[in-house]
């Protein structure tokens, strides 16, 4: 049979069995990942989980303890950073302070010995792409945080790398600018078509920008998938928690077949849920989860096919939404419910009895 692999699904990065130890400490424990050409891929995880370590190994800074990295089909083992088809946007931006913006952006081109006009044309083009065309002669210390970030971006892009590595490029910016740069980053990636690997510990950033996300904990990849996939079907409590609020309910496995599980959970009764990624049968206990925004408050005599009742024990106001903490008889922990404020969820008094509607499809089974 002929393989009909399109250009878009050609693997650009293949990581297999990658380990990295610092002395006795294992920073990366056997990572295997593939990233497709032209993909916007994010590494998401809490501080210290090894994101930077992984990114630096891709760039060629430091040597892996075991495993291999291939970029565009070529094994990178033992190849120094200056001869890899990658470029990096450093967290601190690392703008050369003794050079102006143009010299910074042209830094890597000098070595290529292009003719002067071609070099200038490429610098110009890169600066225009990040909308810094007017600041070419500015020195590094005369730039704002956002401008420095753009210089770092232009300096890497001008090299036309196969893979662009970004280590928390937006974390030093204030919220407003960060959101603006997120949009620009996404547009930029689509425009240049280069594979981007973004390291971030901001789940919203990862979800909003990426084609796919890898969630890392303790030097391991816990889950890889599209933003929607990992948000809706987290494989474990940890992943679910890291991607925003999640209510956890203990459940018991009643039946197990090919792809789905039939579960009994207090309050929700008998439900069916797809098996989580990497599911291994381990006894009868399992965790069921539902996102707070998938629970809906039922007003007056509204009825829903699936509903549970409880009592509001706490209320948090967040501006556009209100979070209600609802105690359900028979549940170990209360449920959190987020409701937009259009209907007056912010006025529901603490202590009142309440009914919640849910969609059984929103219930996810998790591995632990």
């Amino acid at each position, binding site marked *: 049979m002929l393989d009909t692999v399109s250009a878009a699904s050609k693997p650009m990065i293949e990581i297999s069995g990658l380990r990295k130890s610092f002395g006795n400490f294992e920073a990366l424990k056997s990572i295997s990942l593939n990233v497709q050409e032209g993909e916007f891929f994010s590494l998401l995880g809490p501080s210290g989980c090894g994101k930077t370590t992984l990114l630096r190994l891709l*760039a*060629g*800074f430091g040597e892996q303890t075991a495993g291999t990295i291939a970029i565009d089909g070529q094994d990178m083992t033992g190849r*120094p*950073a*200056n*001869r890899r088809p*990658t*470029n*990096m946007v*450093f*967290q*601190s931006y*690392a703008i*050369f*302070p*003794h*050079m102006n913006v143009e*010299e910074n952006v042209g*830094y*890597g081109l*000098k*070595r*290529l010995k292009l003719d002067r006009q071609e070099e200038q044309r490429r610098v110009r083009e890169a600066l225009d792409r990040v909308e810094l065309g007017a600041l070419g002669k500015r020195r590094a210390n005369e730039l704002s945080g956002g401008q420095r970030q753009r210089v770092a971006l232009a*300096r*890497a892009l001008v*090299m036309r790398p196969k893979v662009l590595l970004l280590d928390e490029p937006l974390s030093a910016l204030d919220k407003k600018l960060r959101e603006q740069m997120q949009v620009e980053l996404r547009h930029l990636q689509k425009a240049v078509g280069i594979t981007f690997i973004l390291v971030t510990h901001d789940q919203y950033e990862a979800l909003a920008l990426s084609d796919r996300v890898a969630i890392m904990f303790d030097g391991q990849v816990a889950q890889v998938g599209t933003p929607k996939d990992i948000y809706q079907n987290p494989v474990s409590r940890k992943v679910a928690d890291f991607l925003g609020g999640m209510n956890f309910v203990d459940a018991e496995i009643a039946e197990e077949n090919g792809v789905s599980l039939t579960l009994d959970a207090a309050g929700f009764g008998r439900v069916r849920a797809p098996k989580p990624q990497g599911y291994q049968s381990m006894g009868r206990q399992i965790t069921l989860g539902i996102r707070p925004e998938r629970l809906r408050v039922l007003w007056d005599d509204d009825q829903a096919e699936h509903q549970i009742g409880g009592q509001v024990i706490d209320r948090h106001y967040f501006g556009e939404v209100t979070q209600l903490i609802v105690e359900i008889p028979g549940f170990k922990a209360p449920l959190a419910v987020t409701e937009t404020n259009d209907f007056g969820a912010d006025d529901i008094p603490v202590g009142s009895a309440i009914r919640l509607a849910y969609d059984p499809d929103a219930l996810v089974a998790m591995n632990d």
Partner: protein
Amino acid sequence: MPFAGTRPPARRPRWKRLDPEEVRGIRLLSPTFLYTLAFLVGPVLLVVAYSFWTQTYLTFDHTFTLENYRVALTEPIYRDLLMRSLYISFIVSLVTVIFAYPIAYYISFHGGSRKSLLLFLITIPFWTGYLLRVMAWKVILGYKGVLNTGLIGLGIVDKPLESLLFSSTAVIITLIHAWAVFAILPIYVSLEKLDRSLLEAATDLGDGPVRRFLRVTLPLSMPGIIGALLIVMIPTVGDFVTPKLVGGTEGQMIANAIQIQFGKASNWPLGSALTITTMMIVTLMAGASVLVLRSLVRWMR
């Protein structure tokens, strides 16, 4: 209420217009300022004044004359001494910086947790007085000194080298040793301040270790290099102890001549003129060195 508008503040006398911050700044500065005035600016002005006068034995003729400068600039003996001083201090500062750089680099980049220890060890020679260290060099460089006996013992030469001690070379070697730490420290500081991620960025953009050194490390440590160069160059021009002890007649420097004018020869005006001339020329040499280094760096990247 009707619109009040803003009235421009009344102009106050200039000294009153200083804001409290400035007043505080001036007050803080004033002790240092007075100190500088009394012990630096004052004496220099005095020397400048002397250089335009004439002395006969103990009396000064205060009529303005440029005669002293004519002597200082045209008499072959002073010209030679000045040239030799400049040559010695230039070589000393250059070689000191060239030796100091790798040491500072090693401590900063490979010192790890032993940085403080290494810096501490470097200062050990300074626990003894300067004279003792010069004497030590006399022992090493002397006719029957350590170096000569060593060379003979190894069969490299068959009779002692005479030119080791009492020469410009001896002065140069002694001074290089004496000033090493003063050159290591500023370079070390500038290397410590160098953000290591800049080096990674240079590597990431395709530079190997040598190009990276020339394009990033060296230019960014240039303030340290310039500092080291000036710290060594300026005082060594005016050194008179070292040439006196190890220089012999062939290693005398301008400061020895100045000392004689203020001492035995009792010609303060000429001594002053020599001093001022030396200061000017050292300033020019230092400035020129800085410019050359700067343009070297610009050219390299």
